[in-house]
């Protein structure tokens, strides 16, 4: 039996500029204080966390400006401010002091191509090439604690849209699609891990929360299309747990014909708009003989009065 402890983040929506103008327009973009508090939390607890999962929408748009700012949050060297090693030379937060794996998957915003938000932007792949190196363009497995001694494998799947034509009009900003080709790749990787890493349990990570609308309210333009096939295949391949984000609302729920698939949907980790769930999530996963024996979690909520994440929800 082994325990893997993860920090699950999602929907950071980092922008380079005009943050307040986005905010005035009611758009969810990151709050610098929340991002700073997040980096501080990671640094303080770096020894107790085995890996960080980020389920998409790291940048607010797949533009060079936003992606370059977003990647700075991961790679910018820290340690310039006395007592605050989670800040870089410009006093911007950085995760650089966290020396363990950071596992990411792109979200629809990361794939926005240009200011019009057209789908299938490719800049993310370049900027995040140190973190996102998918096989066949959409699937990336990541084993913990390492490839040779895997106890838990996170298989990340990118279900962002390939083209406008795959969604309803106006759906391209918020919808995703379970493409058959990508799903088959996901299944192939899952089977491969099962056979090559017999001691490794498997969970899937994607950006879009499948079947979220069956449990909580979700605008049609925000849904993952054809999520039934994804859930069906999760059941078929024996994958019990999925982690995701996208909705900016925290939820844990079960789905599938036998309710055998359990979803952990994180809120947003850095946006502080209205009723959204600004939170980060600790996951503790107990594995034994290639299966997840226990999956438990605790959310840490944003406290705007003290600019910290804490276990008690105040807002």
């Amino acid at each position, binding site marked *: 039996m082994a325990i893997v*402890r993860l920090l699950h983040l999602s929907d950071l929506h980092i922008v380079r*500029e*005009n*943050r*307040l*103008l*986005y*905010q*005035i*327009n*009611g*758009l969810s973009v990151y709050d*610098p*204080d929340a991002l*700073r508090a997040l980096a*501080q*939390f990671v640094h*303080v*607890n770096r020894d*107790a*966390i085995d890996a960080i999962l980020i389920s998409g929408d790291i940048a607010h748009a797949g*533009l*060079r*400006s936003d992606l370059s700012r977003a990647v700075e949050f991961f790679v910018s060297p820290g340690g310039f401010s*006395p*007592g*605050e090693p989670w800040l870089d030379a410009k*006093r911007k937060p950085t995760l650089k002091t966290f020396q363990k794996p950071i596992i990411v998957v792109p979200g629809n915003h990361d794939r926005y*191509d*240009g*200011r*019009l938000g*057209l789908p299938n932007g490719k800049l993310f792949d370049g900027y995040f090439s140190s973190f996102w190196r998918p096989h066949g363009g959409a699937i990336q497995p990541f084993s913990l604690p390492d490839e040779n001694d895997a106890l838990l494998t996170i298989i990340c799947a990118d279900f962002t849209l390939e*083209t*406008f*034509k795959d969604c*309803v*009009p*106006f759906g391209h900003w918020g919808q995703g699609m379970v493409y058959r080709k990508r799903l088959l790749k996901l299944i192939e990787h899952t089977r491969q891990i099962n056979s090559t890493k017999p001691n490794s349990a498997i969970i899937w990570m994607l950006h879009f929360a499948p079947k979220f609308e069956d449990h909580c309210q979700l605008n049609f333009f925000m849904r993952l299309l054809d999520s039934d096939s994804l859930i069906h295949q999760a059941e078929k391949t024996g994958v019990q*747990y999925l982690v995701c984000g996208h909705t900016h609302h925290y939820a*844990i729920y079960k789905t599938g014909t036998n309710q055998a698939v*359990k979803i*952990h949907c994180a809120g947003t980790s850095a946006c502080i708009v209205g009723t959204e769930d600004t939170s980060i999530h*600790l996951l*503790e996963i107990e594995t034994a003989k290639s299966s997840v024996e*226990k*999956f*438990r*979690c*605790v959310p*840490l909520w944003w*406290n*705007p*009065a*003290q*600019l*910290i*994440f*804490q*276990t008690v929800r105040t807002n």
Partner: protein
Amino acid sequence: MLSKDVCFNIDSVGQRCLDEVCDFRGILALLSKNKNFAEDIWDRVPMLEGGGYVSRGCDAESVVYASGAKEFLLRLYRDAHNDYFIQPNIGRYLFFQRLCLLELSHHYWHNQVAESVSSELTIPLPEIRVSKLNDPLLKFTASPRLVTLVKNHMVKPDEMAVEILKQMRKMRPDADSQKQEIETIVSVEVENFLTDLAKRFSISGEPPLITSDQRFSPETCSEIIDRLELDAYNPTPVLDLLYKELTEFLSRSREREWGKIIFKDSKFTFLLRDDAFKIPVISSINEDLWVSL
């Protein structure tokens, strides 16, 4: 108490923005003022989508530097951006662009685009001044590049799309509510700025340098500029609000969840509660809080 005129070092604001002027507003202003120059720029940019935004191939800064006309751009920028902060904004700009795209899409599928647009080479948004972006129904002439974009990406609008388009046309920006939003944001940012100073104090044990020679220190100025994304050439509306918020925050010295800041005789004193800014340590999280899935 610090007097208003020494609160902010406008020179430093100006200098910073001189360094950072090369953003989309500059490009937009440029396109709006000098068509020939804009065409010149246009030819240098591998891909400009949707009218003025540089989205692929190079960034706005390199466009402007490549043009060798930074000073010229600065002059245009100063003229064109008046009341930018309060009036036009990104949201309206995006909204406007989307509307244009939809219009084009609609025309395209009714075979009107080829005759009316593609023969004419125009720069997207050449005539649209920043201050006119309020009007979502403003006439728009598409460039062939944008038409191509539409052809490549847009699907035939169905009834639903047409209906949404109608709804979008009815929308009108509300300047008053936006102004109120800005006031709220300034208020929140001031609160957060001073809370963050207190938080830093709790970490380092050293009081942060807020003022210097009866002015806010360059670090303080820099942080406020950064937080509020102040507009260098017309900072007055925001600075007024900021000044009001700062003085209110300091004069009332209301107790916060973490303690309070007292401002007396030009000195700041931080009083922190024992439990202020405590970051949860994972090992000490109460077992009852964990939820099994």
